[in-house]
């Protein structure tokens, strides 16, 4: 495959990232998706939109998030310097809010008066409920019944924020089923409803606009790194569920040829069985939820249920831009097991006094492996995309601790 002049010009005008992406939706949604694209183009060209987005990110979300040199972790690992982009310090505790701010501003531009969203771990649900409270819009969050049970604190948070949380019992009752139910709601309520998708997946233009809203992470990090160290990092690392925090970090660096990138999928109990959520490493291209991308599926194209200790990574698909970046070889992808993530979670708690979410714990586990193979004048920058408050019950159970 020929290397393009730039890795930052995707998608094409049909919403395709090479073979991936597109608009695989029911006809009922097509006109709406075309409208959304038109409105997004108008917003991109409107300085007032950008000004409002930036203002909310600064004063409501708390950006820019710090760039932090993890000195004791670096020492403990013995190798490359480890730096973190501290998006876990954002309002609501994860990167998800960056995207929600952008999308709710778009929803209001389009005159929509009702918001729906899907959520797995509950982080995107909380972020959506938060922006809906902030702008006074009613909000319905679809969440798999299994996830409702394992993420109780976030369910209560959403309710406190005024959202209606609908447990989804169809299928395996996890994130993909919540997304199906979100799409079903949307087709029945297209006239007044905006669907805030929580990751860089779904039909065009969602993968593009979610990436753009999340790119604030990489833009800030690039400038911060240059001003602090006078150079760019050697390696970027981020965890991948649908891929939004990873793309947010990677995208502004894609045309820096000396910056390597590593996306970390969830290997669950291991890639050799089927109890993992690694769509790129263990899946095949297919069509689901509006886009063509790598999916966990069987030989008949039935979607299979993944597993990860992290509810936020437990999705059988991945954003189409990652599928393209993988095929192009621009980004390397690896996977980390539940146990490795759990070890990394504890390592960060003890070396840095930071309790990470289980999602970035996967990134930290990959950082731990790579750092040791690199020189001490090299720099790894990892996205600390969420804090671990929501996960303490899961971790306690895994460690056999009664709370």
């Amino acid at each position, binding site marked *: 495959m020929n290397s393009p002049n730039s890795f930052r010009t995707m998608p094409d005008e049909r919403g395709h990232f090479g073979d991936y992406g597109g608009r695989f939706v029911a006809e009922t949604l097509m006109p709406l998706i075309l409208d959304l694209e038109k409105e997004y183009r108008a917003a991109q060209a409107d300085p007032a939109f950008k000004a409002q987005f930036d203002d909310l990110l600064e004063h409501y979300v708390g950006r820019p998030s710090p760039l932090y040199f993890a000195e004791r972790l670096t020492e403990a690992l013995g190798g490359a310097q480890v730096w973190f982009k501290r998006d876990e310090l954002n309002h609501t505790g994860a990167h998800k809010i960056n995207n929600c701010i952008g999308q709710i501003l778009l929803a209001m531009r389009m005159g929509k008066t009702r918001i729906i969203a899907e959520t797995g771990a509950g982080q995107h649900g909380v972020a959506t409920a938060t922006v809906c409270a902030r702008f006074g819009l009613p909000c319905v969050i679809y969440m798999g019944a299994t996830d409702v049970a394992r993420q109780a604190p976030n369910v209560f948070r959403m309710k406190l924020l005024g959202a209606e949380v609908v447990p989804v019992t169809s299928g395996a009752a996890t994130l993909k089923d919540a997304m199906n139910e979100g799409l*079903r709601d949307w087709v*029945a309520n297209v*006239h007044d409803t905006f669907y805030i998708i929580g990751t860089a997946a779904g039909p065009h233009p969602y993968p593009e606009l979610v990436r753009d809203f999340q790119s604030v992470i990489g833009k800030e990090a690039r400038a911060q790194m240059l001003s602090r160290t006078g150079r760019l990092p050697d390696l970027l690392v981020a965890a991948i569920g649908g891929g939004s925090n990873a793309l947010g970090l990677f995208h502004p660096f894609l045309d820096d040829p000396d910056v390597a990138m590593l996306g970390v999928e969830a290997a669950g109990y291991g890639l050799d069985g089927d109890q993992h959520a690694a769509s790129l490493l263990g899946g095949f291209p297919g*069509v689901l939820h509006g886009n063509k991308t790598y999916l966990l599926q069987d030989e008949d194209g039935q*979607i299979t249920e993944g597993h990860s200790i992290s509810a936020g990574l437990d999705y059988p698909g991945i954003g189409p831009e990652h599928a393209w970046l993988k095929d192009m070889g621009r980004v390397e992808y690896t996977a980390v097991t539940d146990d490795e993530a759990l070890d990394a979670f504890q390592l960060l708690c003890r070396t840095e006094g930071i309790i990470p979410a289980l999602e970035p714990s996967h990134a930290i586990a990959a950082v731990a492996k790579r750092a040791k193979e690199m020189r001490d004048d090299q720099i790894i920058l990892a996205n600390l995309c969420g804090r671990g408050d929501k996960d303490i019950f899961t971790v306690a159970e895994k460690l056999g601790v009664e709370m």
Partner: protein
Amino acid sequence: MTRLSSAFSKPHPALVCFLTAGDGDTAANLDALVAGGADVIELGMPFTDPMADGPAIQAANLRSLGAGTTTADVLGIATAFRQRHPDVPLVLMGYANPMVRRGAEWFAAAAKDAGVDGVICVDIPPEEDDALGPALRDAGIAPIRLATPTTDDKRLPAVVEGSQGFLYYVAVAGITGMQQAAIESIEANVSRIKRATDIPVAVGFGVRTPEQAAEIAQVADGVVVGSALVELVAEHGADAPAKLRELTAALATAIRAAR
């Protein structure tokens, strides 16, 4: 004349009946639809994630997959149906992923071999026609597109272009099994679509009773019934054929009397 065009050239509008493949004794159930007077059979390909379907058809998909139905089984059901009913048009309906899993050409050839006349793919709009449409047309299978209340006049030509067999007008903006739309809206939309194309227009989503079918038959070339039949399969199991035949016959009678 193709089997589909013959079905739409009868003196009465066509009754199009939907069942999910592999949910119950599909062969016996399909025979009951034909015996009751179905003019076109729509055979649903089960999928784990039926995004456009309401509870009844979602459950049918899960029952079928739970019973172990594979793509080979669905094609086997179609092949056997074609042997028993050489003249009744058979349309596969489903979602993109099971259709493109082994490649669009593979699927089109396999469907052709099984005697399938048309394919309705819910999540391939005209914008993504490349993913399946050319392979179907090359194999001589009709790609049947969906038009909806949100399909405005600007989009309609793109939807109609490359569509064959019949156009499926989805009467409600929503999922299967919801309430029927107002007949005035159906009538206005069908005549709008008929101004844009010569192919027959069948109307579905929300049609459950002979009365509703008769009303639609006055304004459209075909009436599609799905959830109401699928519910009979769920409710009556091995006794479903008699019930299916009864409802189909009542729908067929109502449609024939409508014009």
